[in-house]
């Protein structure tokens, strides 16, 4: 099959809303959105706490979190695999090769991004707001809700960056999900498999969806920063 024929077959898959194709897209989005949601719920307050707290070794923690932003997905996958494998510490949960395992692995990948960016943003904002907030009685950690709310547009960008990373990665979901058709096969793992099998239409179709997704993420990011500029002055 030549590339142009594969391409038109790919378009047919998308336009025809092929059920197998849609299932993969749906699972991918479900896994990534869940992972980002979990990472945001944990990461936003954690980043703000790290920004406002002072303790010995804080610098080391910040360097570690920043470094983890570059954690290779396959390594994150390996770590979660070891944790979830039958002999691992949480192997009894029986989560390995399930969508839950993939959510967990991607949350681990996204968490450092959200914590690191939140920490930096909150710290900068706190530097600017600290005296006024203390003056009206919001000292210490009581300043956190105000700082997160006022950083909302920039923080949205951090969350979208995390979403971008998770939706594009293949290593972690492949290792802990196992690429089981109809159960843990995501867009990225399907592309890797179908390309090597020679099923180019499915790979290309999923590739197009991924590119579209990236475009949407960037459009929303741009919108968020524009909206933020309205308030940031």
């Amino acid at each position: 099959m030549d590339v142009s024929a594969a391409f038109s077959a790919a378009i047919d898959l998308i336009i025809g809303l092929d059920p197998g194709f849609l299932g993969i897209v749906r699972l991918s989005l479900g896994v990534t959105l869940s992972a980002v949601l979990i990472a945001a719920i944990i990461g936003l307050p954690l980043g703000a706490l790290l920004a406002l707290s002072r303790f010995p070794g804080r610098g080391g923690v910040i360097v570690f979190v920043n470094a983890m932003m570059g954690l290779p997905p396959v390594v994150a996958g390996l770590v979660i695999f070891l944790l979830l494998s039958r002999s691992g510490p949480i192997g009894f949960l029986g989560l390995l090769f399930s969508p839950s395992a993939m959510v967990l692995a991607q949350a681990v990948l996204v968490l450092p991004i959200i914590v690191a960016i939140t920490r930096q943003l909150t710290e900068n904002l706190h530097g600017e707001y600290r005296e006024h907030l203390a003056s009206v009685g919001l000292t210490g950690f009581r300043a956190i809700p105000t700082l997160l709310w006022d950083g909302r547009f920039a923080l949205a960008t951090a969350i979208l960056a995390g979403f971008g990373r998770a939706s594009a990665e293949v290593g972690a979901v492949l290792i802990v999900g196992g690429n089981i058709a109809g159960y843990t096969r995501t867009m990225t793992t399907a592309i890797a498999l179908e390309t090597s099998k020679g099923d180019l239409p499915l790979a290309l179709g999923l590739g197009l969806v991924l590119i579209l997704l990236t475009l949407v993420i960037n459009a929303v990011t741009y919108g968020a920063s524009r909206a933020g500029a309205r308030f940031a002055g």
Partner: protein
Amino acid sequence: MRETTSILPLSAEDLSFEAGGKLLVSQLRFAIQRGGLTALLGPNGSGKSLTLRLCHGLIRPSAGRVAWGAEKGVLAGVKRHAMVFQKPVMLRRSARANIVHALAAAGVARAERQERAVAALARFGLDALSENPARLLSGGEQQRLAIARAWSLRPELLFLDEPCSQLDPGATRQIEEMLAALKAEGVTLVMATHDMAQARRIADRVLFLHRGRLVEDSPAASFFTAPASAEARAFIAGELLW
């Protein structure tokens, strides 16, 4: 026991502040009674801003203490002193939301916040700017909003740190008119300034600081006509003093 009805007088009792081995504020003793505008006057680096921060409780003194007529300047659970900064701190929200936020932080009941915010905006002619993002207001409007925000907290005593130093003459005049109105309302004002002309226009009393020390404490009229200290005379004459 006598019922406490005011957080005043405020007394600085041998107030000192040290940082990096340097004594920046040294053994200040003064009292602020109810009413009037007291100017903390002095050149840059004389400790005016630090003194305000010490009194407002933003920083802790290295020695001495700040005593209030009511513990910590809190009356019936409400902090009754507020502060306006040199560079107004504007939250990334609308003008009205900035006031609502301060009221919420101060523990004002939800139902009352909007009402008081609207009243504060109207009181200082900011109603037309109510929904504008606060950070996009002009410098003068931001400082007026900062004062309106502080006023909404119903302080007995308002600290102001060089509130006009970054403003043009027109905006400065508006702020000075606001301060005169607040004074007429019975709010006690303590303002740091290095602007002698401004102190002469609006101050009732001058605390003259030099190198962290209180050099002179006089009624404004006599301070400007017959300063008692050599430092104050040099400052008024415009001779370089640091």
